[in-house]
């Protein structure tokens, strides 16, 4: 069932690349991307479903938003000194997307539903680089569906909460250190869909004055569990085939960590909105990556690699300026601290402290149609790691990403 839902929602749309800390993908609204992805302490329109369900109750009109980004990510690798081997990922362009719809049941109570992609990772290193025995490619996809209710308790205070239903899948391929006499190296592919997982997203929005607003949001951990995933071996020479048996299945689990955010909004003039957010992502939930196999693979019934992520903070600022009643210009920046400790770097998520710079514009076409466009540039710090604690691939990694996106809003 879960895989059919994924298929219905359209294969390639689903995934995103790991372009925030770890494998979190913070691309939830085109307007907010333009503002450094702030949004906890301000009204963000329908996307408050994601940023702060407490603010959703303030929406004046019913609305639908659809948007998508084109995520172009590049990662370079260089072997530990004095090695000089280099590699660069050949990542496909990914299209994380978001759909939000909000309906006012009455002045105070609003109902909404959001579909978005807050986690994911796609990296394709290929099968020639020095780290191919660690990873050829990984595609981790997660899609969250979130029905939400929000209630405005007073003019100044709103609360809201949504149930998160999460669907996901993973595909991981790597080269095996077993070679045939034709020179070909063996390969292993793990492929599986996750069981439907649950979580929640709750928020409080407080607007003490016309100029100031505050928000607190908690998105719970969602634990993806995979069972009966398929393990496929290829290019295994006959003499080694006993170690890699057909029909092997795997199970694994991966936490999508909880995120607690606090945000402030300030509107000094009618035309200017300033926002700042701070988030704490509970990455420490990701202790290890473990695959359990139904038949031994190279003599082992499980593969365990320590991850030991640590909780990390994200700091964001953003601004929107209404040049005219129809045209909005936006800008923002953020610093996303890495959850990956020294010694634990991996080629799946060669993570480092990440700097994001964004610009955006909004244009109101008519009373009920408006457009948003955003552009986000992400630059992760160059990081050299021995990867001696994660059993990863030691070396220097450098990641950058260019993420243009567009969104369309209808209100009625």
């Amino acid at each position, binding site marked *: 069932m879960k895989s059919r839902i994924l298929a219905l929602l359209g294969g390639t749309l689903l995934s995103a690349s790991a372009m925030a800390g770890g494998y979190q993908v913070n691309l939830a609204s085109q307007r907010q991307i333009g503002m450094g992805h702030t949004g906890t302490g301000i009204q963000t329109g329908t996307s408050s479903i994601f940023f702060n369900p407490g603010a959703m109750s303030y929406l004046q009109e019913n609305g639908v938003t659809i948007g998508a980004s*084109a995520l*172009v990510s*590049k*990662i*370079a*690798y*260089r*072997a530990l*000194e*004095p*090695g*000089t*081997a*280099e590699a*660069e990922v050949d990542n496909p362009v990914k299209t994380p997307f978001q759909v939000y719809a909000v309906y006012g049941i009455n002045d105070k109570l609003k109902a909404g539903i959001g579909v978005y992609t807050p986690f994911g990772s796609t990296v394709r290193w290929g099968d020639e680089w*020095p*780290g*191919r*025995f*660690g990873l050829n490619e990984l595609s981790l996809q997660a899609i969250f569906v979130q029905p939400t209710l929000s209630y405005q308790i007073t003019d100044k205070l709103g609360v809201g909460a949504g149930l998160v239903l999460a669907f996901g899948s993973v595909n991981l391929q*790597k080269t095996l*250190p*077993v*070679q*045939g*006499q*034709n*020179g070909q190296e063996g390969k292993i592919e793990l492929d599986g869909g996750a069981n439907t997982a649950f979580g929640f997203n709750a928020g409080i929005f407080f607007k003490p004055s016309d100029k100031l607003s505050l928000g607190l949001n908690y998105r719970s951990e969602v634990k993806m569990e995979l069972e009966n995933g398929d393990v496929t071996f290829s290019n295994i*020479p*006959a*003499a*080694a*085939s006993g170690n890699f048996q057909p029909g092997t299945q795997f199970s694994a689990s991966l936490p999508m960590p909880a995120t607690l955010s606090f945000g402030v909004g300030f509107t000094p003039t009618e035309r200017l909105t300033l926002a700042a957010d701070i988030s704490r992502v509970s990455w420490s939930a990701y202790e290890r990556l473990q695959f359990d196999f139904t038949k031994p693979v190279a003599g082992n019934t499980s593969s365990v690699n320590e991850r030991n992520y640590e909780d990390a903070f994200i700091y964001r600022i953003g601004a929107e300026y209404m040049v005219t009643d129809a045209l909005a210009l936006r800008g923002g920046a953020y610093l996303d601290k890495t959850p990956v400790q020294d010694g634990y770097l991996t080629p799946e998520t060669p993570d480092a402290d990440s700097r994001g710079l964004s610009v955006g514009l909004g*244009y109101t*076409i008519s009373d009920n*149609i408006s*457009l948003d*466009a955003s*552009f986000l540039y992400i630059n992760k710090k*160059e990081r050299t790691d021995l990867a001696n604690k994660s*059993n*990863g*691939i*030691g070396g*220097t*990694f*450098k*990641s*950058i990403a*260019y993420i*243009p996106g*567009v969104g369309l809003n209808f209100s009625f």
Partner: protein
Amino acid sequence: MKNFMYKSGMLALFAGVLLTSCDPEIDGTAPSKGDINLEKYVAVGNSLTAGYQDRGLYREAQLNSYPAILAQQFKLVGGGEFTQPLFEESQASGSGYLTFADFINGRPVIKPVPGAAVREGTTLPGGPALTKYTQPVQNLGVPGISVLTSAMKEYGAINPYYERLLEPAEVGTKPYFQEVAESNPTFFTMWLGNNDVLGYATDGGAPASPLSNLTDPAMFGNIYKNMVATLTANDAKGVLITIPNVTAVPFFTTVPYNALALTRQGQADSLNAAYGSGALGITFKVGPNPLVVSDPSVPARVRQIKSTEYVLLTALDSIAARGYGSKKPLPDKFFLDETEVKEIMEHTVAFNDIIRATAKDKGLAMWDANAFFESIKGGFKLDEVTYAPVFVTGNLFSLDGIHPTPRGYAIVANELIKTINSTYKANVPTVDVTQYRAIQFPGK
């Protein structure tokens, strides 16, 4: 709206074109040769230096020798050409070697590939003569040579790998020592001395030839120091390399002392009866049992092997398929007894002391291969590949259990590069070892 769409579309396109050209780049430290002159690199040594593996010397093995890898990396910092006595492509199998034919009951089936570079009709005491290569070479690796034999002028008439490098008139008249002295390097590596213990060890302490006895350390020191003196006569720099303990390689560690596995009480009973029902001090039980070996020094002339003694890889088939070590005692040449192990260890220590002292004395770099192989006995992980001194599956050692695979040689070359870099303030790049193969398994 159309205008907006057009403009933002163009902007996105422009951004896309602009940005795909901005790839992340990582700058490394600039390569440098430091304090050394790499115009003429010469490699002095034995089979390990020649690239020998799978019990043979063949073209692919030569191309992946550690000196070839070093020379290739030296070129990145201005090093000169490097000539090896390569077998022609038409004679690529060289001396002949072993190939992995099948894997049956957990045991590799290993078959010989005949040598294509064998000179018909000429056989030397050390084996069939090989196609000549008499132009000057810089890889002076001669499989089988020891410090002792490097000083013997007769050696060219004995060892086919040395004979092939010599002009006819030099055969039997020119010692290897002289060949080394004439090489006139600006930089050298010297990994010699392994065969001053290894020949004795691989013959199970029962040397088949007088040349494969344990060399006297005093004589070893004399020849070794003189050879280093000739190499450094023109102020050449270089690396001296110590001798790994024989017990660090799969040839001596693959077959455990208690390799005699009995599954039924009947088997134990029948063996107990065959060996005097305990009267000879030999008893058997269900499970792993020490192998039975012949030992003329004990009254019964047979005994069970001790846990401190080593069974050679060459005994594997005799034990598994021909009943040796149980009903038939394993002959002396298939194992190292305690006394032999002690002698080998003592000689290895003495030789390595000489090598270290010579390096210090001459101000040369020293790679302690003994310490390195000792440190990896339990295996190690590099770029998610496990390496261990384990036969066939350990990725480091070739099918003869003594010599590395191309991957193993690449790892050795990288260790040497690190030693060179740290001693001579150089920054010679290491290689990506995953580009070199390990054991290749048969079957589609």
